[in-house]
């Protein structure tokens, strides 16, 4: 592990605490392992928020989470004594009951820890360049995901416009999939909808989604034979330098050509004002 001016002994100067519902391979790498009961992440994090503020919490309440009060007191003491704390979290938190609120709990705890010492938190993102998509959507539309353009300007409402919800409710009459395989991960009603409507997939490989799709365009794999930029999970952009050449077009080229073809068709938008002072 990286040595640095302030941590000259590298790993030895660091303490790693792993929190999970079961013993995973990562336990070996950790100094401390806390096994939380499934579905109790939000409660555990909320208890920690109270504990760092010296709010009284009873042992019985803590025991519900599967972690002992002593273990939590030790954790809080270590967190406060740390020079620089970092929390990493993934889909075990964000995709289980409580979803975004589990992530919110961790982020809030990290923010509140800064009253005592330096603390940060960062999501470990899923497959593909999720961070990159987030970053670009934000600068172009103001929002990271769950965006609707049907009114001619961006609107945001996770739950209403997020992909899984739109598909489950069957709110679209066409689906365009790029850099993802929803057919492998989404709930059955969403998959049924993908099969029901015209689904167009851009992917270098045959995927669960491409099997459901009406159209599958094979594209060059990004980073291997297509250049571009990937955003690291801390939102630092890295250039992709292709090692191979591909006879397939890139996602970008296909998308651009589809866009040009659509632009050549008559527009459905009705002439109106250039801007709206109040949105829907």
């Amino acid at each position, binding site marked *: 592990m*990286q040595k*640095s*001016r*302030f941590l000259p002994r590298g790993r030895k100067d660091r303490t790693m605490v792993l929190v999970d519902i079961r013993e995973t391979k990562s336990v070996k790498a950790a100094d401390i392992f806390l096994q939380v009961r499934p579905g109790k992440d939000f409660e555990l994090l909320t208890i920690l928020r109270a504990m760092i503020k010296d709010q009284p919490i009873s042992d019985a309440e803590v025991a519900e989470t599967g972690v002992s009060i002593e273990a939590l007191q030790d954790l809080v003491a270590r967190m406060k004594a740390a*020079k*620089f704390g970092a929390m990493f979290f993934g889909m075990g938190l964000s995709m289980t009951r409580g979803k975004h609120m589990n992530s919110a709990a961790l982020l809030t705890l990290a*923010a509140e820890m*800064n*009253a005592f*010492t*330096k603390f*940060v938190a960062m999501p470990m993102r899923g497959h593909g360049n999720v961070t990159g998509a*987030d*970053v*670009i959507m*934000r*600068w*172009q*539309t*103001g*929002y*990271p995901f769950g965006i609707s*353009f049907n*009114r*001619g*300007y*961006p*609107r*945001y409402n996770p739950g209403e416009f997020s992909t899984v919800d739109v598909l489950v409710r069957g709110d679209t009459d066409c689906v365009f999939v790029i850099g993802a395989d929803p057919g492998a991960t989404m709930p059955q009603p969403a998959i049924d909808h993908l099969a029901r409507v015209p689904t167009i997939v851009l992917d270098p490989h045959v995927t669960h989604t491409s099997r459901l799709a009406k159209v599958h365009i094979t594209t060059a794999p990004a980073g291997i034979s297509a250049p571009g*930029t990937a*955003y*690291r999970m*801390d*939102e*630092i*952009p*890295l*250039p992709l330098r292709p090692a191979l050449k591909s006879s397939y077009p890139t996602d970008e080229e296909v998308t651009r050509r589809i866009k040009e073809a659509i*632009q050549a068709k008559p*527009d459905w*938008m009705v002439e*109106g*004002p*250039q*801007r*709206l*002072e*109040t*949105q829907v």
Partner: protein
Amino acid sequence: MLRITGGSVYDPANSINGEVRDLYIADGKFVDKESCDSGRVIDATGMIIFPGGVDVHTHVAGGSINFARAMTPEDHRRTQAFIRTKTRRSGLGGMAPTTFATGYLYAGMGYTTVNEAAVPVLSARHTHEELSDIPIVDKSSLVLMANNEIFLDLLEEGETERAKQVIAWYLWAAKAYGIKAVNPGGVAAWKYGDNASQLTEPVSGYKNVTPGNIVAQLAQIIDELGIPHPIHLHCNNLGAPGNVSTTLETMKHLEGRRAHFAHLQYHAYGGDDWGTMRSASVELAEYFNAHPNMTTDAGAVLFGDTVTITADGPWQHLLYKLTGRKWGNLDVENETGCGIVPYTYKPSNLVNAVQWATGLELLLLIDDPWRVFMSTDHPNGACFWRYPEILQLLMSADFRKECMACLPANIKNRITLPEIDREYTLYELATIISAGPARALGLKQKGNLGVGADADVVIYNRNVNIAEMFGHPRYVIKSGEIVIEEGDIRETPDGREYIIKPSFDPGTDDFLQPLFEDRYCMSFENYPVEMERIENPHLQDCKPQQ
């Protein structure tokens, strides 16, 4: 080709003060009468003509404003929406406008050049991608240097010549236009929850490096490299009561060198704490007026909602504790960081009222309009699209009095604004929003209606309501093309990006690579931004001084 006839021209770069002149445009530049014999004629009789606005200090692209966008969906929903057309992308205005809307809004109020004032080298690639999505206006960017670990280490070891090579290398790696220094030493210390508040005290982790010698060395390096824009400095102790002493001390460290002091309002406070905070604009302006080596931008504050974003992480954490609202923080490994806090400036809040007055006082007390420029440190003091409100405050002492009536009664003795009756002339306004900032940036082709300059022009209908007049130009012309006409967007051409290439020792790569690989978690060859990634790059001269 385009002719603009009969308008009253305000062109401070050529000492033209409201005289009726005709302007001739061909191939995106002003030309003489003979070279423009056809094309559209705009009859500007009775109208007012300014060079296109130049914003010397704004935050419109990159990791921090993009983080602010993520944090404020509630503001995006309540703001104006730009509807897409077949040729124009949609966007949202508000506190942290989207990139496309940023271009529309700047052009919409007659601005044609903007300088993004804070770019970490590590995320410069991201900033350039965003800049290329800001249409219409020309752009430049400043790279953050004063908390860079490798640079600070070189200063610690007294290796100033090497430090100069490294700075030049970094500047080119970032494809930037100049150097910004934010809270020198303080942001580096913040990574460990610390700050740097004393100019002559060592930065935590160092023995010899002090904020004072960081700024002095950087200013010297910038002069030696011949970078067109001087050191762009965000002093230590931003926002803190009594910080005027730090600011004055910093100015003394820079005597005899060129320097641009960013958002001076935030560095112009007297008093000892929030309870006794007062404006120190008088003493600051007095020193400033006597030292022609310096320029500044106001960093003025307007009452209302905004989101504050700055590389000054420690300050932002303090602001979060004060507001109890949202807070975001980003650290950029080895280089810098930034904090984001949504904020509402209220006239009833004594501190906010002092800030509001201080910004205006500086604009009014600094007597040379060539050295003080319009800015709100967008979005920190207010959003850039509210500049016309400030112009109105500058042009009308009566309007200022009206506004001052809303301030708390105990503001007396804390501000000087009630005693100032100066009113800006149109000529002076044209200087602070265009000619002055263009000169400070070293962009001779901007803020200038003379033959050979870029044909960026704004034409206003005369209007007694100054904010209305400057907020809604009749025509905005960018590189000879009419982009705004009577409030409507006509064209959205891509702007240029200005960059410089200072010369540096070719061995700098070999020097940096091992240091870099020791500290960064990115590979060395991925670090510099490739030239191909800049859309419409425009290389400006950068010649070392003799």
